[in-house]
């Protein structure tokens, strides 16, 4: 009887073990891929690689991509790269999400880390690169590469770290930029202000309000025109995120917890709203591109991406406004406004490259080769020179040709446009002061929600509404619902999938029952076998 009890325990233990194993096997999915590097790249075959890229409505960037593809295909004639260009990351994101459902994702895609995290939650598996980069043959600077690419050590460590999710490397950095405060120095100094090396928020708000002074005829004193929006911020999600980081206030954490609805956020939003009410401040979504207003002399302080530097300034090589609307002024570049000038914090942004897994490992290897080619000096340097981008490799940053390009900044209004090179120098001098926000499934929604709150507050006060505690409380609720904050929480690498569905519980019970039956059968069989002996 005692022995039978022990057998019973054994059976139960077996069943329980089976249950646990089954649960582990069924519930939860590896977010990344289990791509394994082939023995060698099969060059006897033809490969079609689809590459989705983003440009900044800048024809030179398109030409660089096209040259990059042509140069790569010359090295690897059996790989054919088909490129589709976008000018908006969010459209790439939407298209990838749509194509995940039909298993028609591109092979290589320029994208944001936040977006990669979302791709990883679907069937469109991202190839993790942490092992690939160190492969001695086909990894970074590998022996079998047909081009002179960077080694792992030659990629700016901070930029590589930005793409780590847990132990996994989600992609490679392609370009890095930040935001800059573009200042119409001519007008600001005419107003009697000196421009600090690191402007504070207080300084920016004070100058903005002062710029609203009007002449008796109703025109603005600073520009003599009917229109003046002193301060425009292009990306209001970045605005709130950066302000919160500068205040060491909550936004989110690595586990995907939403921390943005806090007192500091309320204080910041009220301050922004107070300047929205006077119309000293506006946003891209409400008014339009800050560069257009600035070039027309209708804006004196603009925060925009350094990747938009060639659109800003009297002599900007690119422009959306007619020449007869432009005014002459001197542009200076500064870090985004700070709360503590001795502790600068600015966002790190810019495109990264991810690779989608496919059934054919050789095709994936071909994609990986192309992704690496994007980090070669020629591509890195030529692309970074199109805008206020910084190459992501030390190999390119320290290349004498690139250093010469920077040294010639301001010598012309084309390749060496001064505002652009000033932006690059500003970023290079502040790499250690840049930050990124945690990446998780839902981080894109949180980012959108941050921008939405700034837009809502500014619109509300422009429309004679009030932004107070009650308003903020209501808005937090609405924004949470609109962006389903909290519903997608959890880091992709270790997300909590919630309680088991009932159907799974029933199925697992069946498995446990089968194990028990099999156990009983085995024991019974042995018992009779012993008896027969």
């Amino acid at each position: 009887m005692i022995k039978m009890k022990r057998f019973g325990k054994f059976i139960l233990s077996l069943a329980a073990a089976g249950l646990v194993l089954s649960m582990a096997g069924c519930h939860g999915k590896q977010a990344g891929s289990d791509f394994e590097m082939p023995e060698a790249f099969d060059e006897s075959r033809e490969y079609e690689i689809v590459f989705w890229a983003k440009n900044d409505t800048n024809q030179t960037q398109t030409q660089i991509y096209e040259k990059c593809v042509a140069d790569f295909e010359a090295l690897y004639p059996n790989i054919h790269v088909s490129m589709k260009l976008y000018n908006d990351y969010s459209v790439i994101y939407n298209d990838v999400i749509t194509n995940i459902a039909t298993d028609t994702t591109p092979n290589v895609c320029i994208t944001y880390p936040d977006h990669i995290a979302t791709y990883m939650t679907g069937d469109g598996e991202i190839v993790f690169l942490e092992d690939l980069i160190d492969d001695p043959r086909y990894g970074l600077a590998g022996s079998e590469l047909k081009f002179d690419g960077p080694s792992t050590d030659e990629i700016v460590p901070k930029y590589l770290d930005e793409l780590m999710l847990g132990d996994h490397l989600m992609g490679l950095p392609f370009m890095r930029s930040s935001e800059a405060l573009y200042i119409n120095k001519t007008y600001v100094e005419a107003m009697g202000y000196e421009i600090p090396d690191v402007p504070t928020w207080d300084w920016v708000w004070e100058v903005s309000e002062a710029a609203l002074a009007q002449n008796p005829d109703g025109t603005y004193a600073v520009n003599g025109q009917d229109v003046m929006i002193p301060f425009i911020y292009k990306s209001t999600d970045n605005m709130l995120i950066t302000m919160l980081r500068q205040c060491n206030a909550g936004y989110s954490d690595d586990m995907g917890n939403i921390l943005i609805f806090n007192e500091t956020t309320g204080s910041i939003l009220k301050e922004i709203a107070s300047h929205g009410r006077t119309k000293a401040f506006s946003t891209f979504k409400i008014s339009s591109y800050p560069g257009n207003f600035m070039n027309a002399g209708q804006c004196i302080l603009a925060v925009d991406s350094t990747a938009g530097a060639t659109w800003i300034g009297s002599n900007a090589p690119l422009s959306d406004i007619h020449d007869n609307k432009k005014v002459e002024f001197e542009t200076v570049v500064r870090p985004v406004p700070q709360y503590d000038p001795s502790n600068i914090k600015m966002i790190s942004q810019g495109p990264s490259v991810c690779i989608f897994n496919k059934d054919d490992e050789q095709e994936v290897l071909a994609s990986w080769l192309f992704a690496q080619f994007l980090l070669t000096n020629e591509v890195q340097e030529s692309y970074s020179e199109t805008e206020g981008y910084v190459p992501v490799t030390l190999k390119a940053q320290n290349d004498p040709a690139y250093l010469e390009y920077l040294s010639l900044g301001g010598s012309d209004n084309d390749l060496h446009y001064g505002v652009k090179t000033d932006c690059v120098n500003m970023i290079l001098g502040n790499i250690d002061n840049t930050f990124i926000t945690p990446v998780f499934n839902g981080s894109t929604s949180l980012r959108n929600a941050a921008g939405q709150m700034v837009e809502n507050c500014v619109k509300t006060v422009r429309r004679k509404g009030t932004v107070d505690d009650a308003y903020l409380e209501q808005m937090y609720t609405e924004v949470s619902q609109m962006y389903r904050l909290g519903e997608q929480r959890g880091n992709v690498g270790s997300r909590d999938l919630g309680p088991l569905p009932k159907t799974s519980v029933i199925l697992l019970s069946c498995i446990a029952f089968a194990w028990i039956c099999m156990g009983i059968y085995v024991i019974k069989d042995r018992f009779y076998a012993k008896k027969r002996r």
Partner: protein
Amino acid sequence: MKKFTAVCAAAALVLTLSACGKTTEAPVVEQPEIDTDALASDLNDVADQFGEALSDLDTDTDTDADAADDGVMSYADYAAAALDDEVTVVTYVQAHQSWWDNKITVYCQDQDGAIFLYELACSEEDAAKLTEGVQIKVTGFKSEWAGETEITDATFEFVEGGDLFVAAPKDLTDKLGTDELIDYQNQKVIFTDMTVVSVAFKNDQPGDDIYVTLSKDGAEYSFCLEYYLNGSDQEFYDLVSGLEAGQVVDVEGFLYWYEGANTHITSVTVK
């Protein structure tokens, strides 16, 4: 017993395989127990309230049909309203861009002037009813983006029993380059005998907007094939893509504004 066990094990295996085969199911939310009697009672209450609301609506709609609602502005009042003011107008749909995410951008016009509705809140079902000429009542905020005057953050309702109005294109060729042109902003317009200067794809590839530069009497003007308006009309897209410098054309469209006139073209006639 042996057979029974084998069958159980096989069944469990099959069930397990079918359960594990798709590992990316959306998280399942536990369904609460449903009290069907209480539900039926609640549904009856809702039906009663819905019936009452419907009869109230009938009365309201009669008033709407008279198109004399309080708060509805004439076009002149709308034009005179300050930016950021709340406005309510009754106008007629002329065309719209593609519906997306419960929003739709609509080109409207009545006998007095035109109004651009940016990202109007709209269900997909209602979007299908926003056909050319249909009358709608819109409430939103007067806004301006890059020189384009529009109504944003707006909601709308169909005018019950409303009439139809389809605007005829107004020839503004002689207004090109003048300060008067902006007075016709968003209207359905036509420019005749224009010469093609250049055609460029947004992103330098087909599949998105097309920027067309046309000239008249030595001055150049910007036009745009807005992809979300008529990019899905492949024949039209190909026609505009294939325009060549030097060709003479008549173009129809809506007089949109982006840092100056930037007509969204709807028709091109090559002469």
